[in-house]
């Protein structure tokens, strides 16, 4: 009789189960980055002697040094100082436009999905009609009507970007409203508003949050496009969009730092916003919430 020996197979790196990474790893860096950004953009403008529009052609196009940590631009303006002011403007545009578009989109999507029928069909055809026009073109028209300004840029971006949120929320609501727990709520006497506020909206919140997060960098990009076309902020005003746009010219003469600094700041801030919203999304998910021990 042959000997049967059992030997455990070595666990390869691919099959070995790794312990789940604590959400603190996402929360802490994101919170620190956003905390520092918030502190800097709020505190620095309090110092009146720091003028981000101060032009000094004698020190134009200087690479990063101890005097100017992020270098200077083609007009001799300090890139770091302009980045601070630019983040203030761009985050205002990004966050406010994203929140307005998410609220408007959620309202339209939730109403269309929960009421259904003709109301839903008409509302979604309106959404399709607006979506059929290129949103940059529509944004340009809106800014042209309102006259270029920061608030016009925000309104233009918000009014042209609620459609995605509306479609996401509508499709989620359509899926949720056929679930037995909605039937159970109706059988228990819940009104349409109660079903919407107690069940439908809280259950679509994670998707709305994700859409809002993705909207922030997109809104910043949109502000760039409008500024590039002369319909956003005036060229001397610092915004991430304006800075990256201006830096394109300097890239040809080797001025890499002028686009690197605002570009990196935009990426890092976006990742921090995304990380924070990911943690929040996990907290909204009842199954994940149980697994989280903090």
């Amino acid at each position, binding site marked *: 009789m042959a000997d049967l020996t059992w030997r455990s197979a070595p666990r390869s790196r691919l099959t070995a189960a790794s312990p789940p990474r604590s959400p603190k790893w996402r929360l802490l860096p994101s919170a620190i980055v956003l905390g520092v950004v918030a502190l800097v953009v709020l505190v620095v403008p309090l110092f009146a002697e720091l003028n981000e529009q101060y032009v000094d052609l004698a020190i134009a196009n200087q690479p990063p040094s101890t005097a100017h940590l992020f270098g200077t631009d083609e007009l001799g303006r300090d890139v770091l100082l302009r980045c601070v002011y630019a983040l203030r403007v761009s985050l205002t545009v990004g966050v406010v436009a994203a929140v307005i578009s998410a609220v408007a989109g959620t309202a339209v999507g939730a109403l269309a999905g929960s009421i259904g029928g003709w109301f839903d069909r008409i509302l979604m055809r309106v959404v399709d009609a607006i979506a059929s026009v290129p949103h940059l073109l529509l944004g340009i028209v809106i800014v042209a009507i309102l006259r270029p300004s920061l608030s016009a840029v925000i309104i233009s971006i918000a009014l042209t970007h609620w459609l995605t949120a509306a479609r996401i929320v509508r499709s989620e609501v359509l899926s949720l409203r056929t*679930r*037995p727990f909605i*039937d159970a709520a109706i*059988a*228990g006497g819940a009104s349409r508003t109660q079903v919407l506020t107690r*069940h439908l909206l*809280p259950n679509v919140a994670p998707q709305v949050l994700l859409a809002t997060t993705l909207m922030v960098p997109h809104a910043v990009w949109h502000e760039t496009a409008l500024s590039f076309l002369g319909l956003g902020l005036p060229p001397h005003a610092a915004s991430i969009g304006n800075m990256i746009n201006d830096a394109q010219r300097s890239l040809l003469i080797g001025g890499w730092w002028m686009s690197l600094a605002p570009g990196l700041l935009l990426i890092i801030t976006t990742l921090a916003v995304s990380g924070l919203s990911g943690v929040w999304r996990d907290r909204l998910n009842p199954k994940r919430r*149980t697994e989280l021990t903090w």
Partner: protein
Amino acid sequence: MLTGLGITAGYQAPVITDVSLTVHPGQTVGLAGPSGSGKSTLARVLALLHKPFAGTVEIDGETVTGFRFRAAQRTRIGVLFQQPRLSVDPRFTLRQAIAEPGGDRVGELADLVMLTDDLLGRRPHEVSDGQLQRACLARALALNPRYLICDEMTTMLDASTTAALVGVIRAYQRESGAGVLAISHDTTLLTRWADETVRLSAPLPR
């Protein structure tokens, strides 16, 4: 008396055609039939959750004129669904689920269905199907319904939980005189539980 008269209902096409069924107060009517025969569709119509293509539903002699949100009489009918896991909002604790219809009798109802205080603080994914179905039964009884529709409520449960839930429903029925429509594939269960059993035939091939 909960009555469905000449009910024709379905989704795109009719699933049940010209079906009539009556549940008297205090009576338990069993409803059996093969899969796809329209048991759940009929249950949804009688629970005022689904508008039929044709036919009328009467509750204690009152003809129902609206369904779902428009049904003024919907709280007179309690419903227990087949899959408890899908019939409770995943964000709710069992306590919130039982309290949802608006009653302040969570403790009393939890005692009735034998749910401990510890379980009431848990969410659906943290309890078993049996425990969750107990919470669903408590929720269905929260408004003291005149009629209770149990749509294959025992499908996901073991024999002991089934016996416990049926016991609770019988006790409620004795106390309140409620009528019960019990839908099941389990003919043994219906033979023991129901006063009479109606069988829906298999749908005709289209």
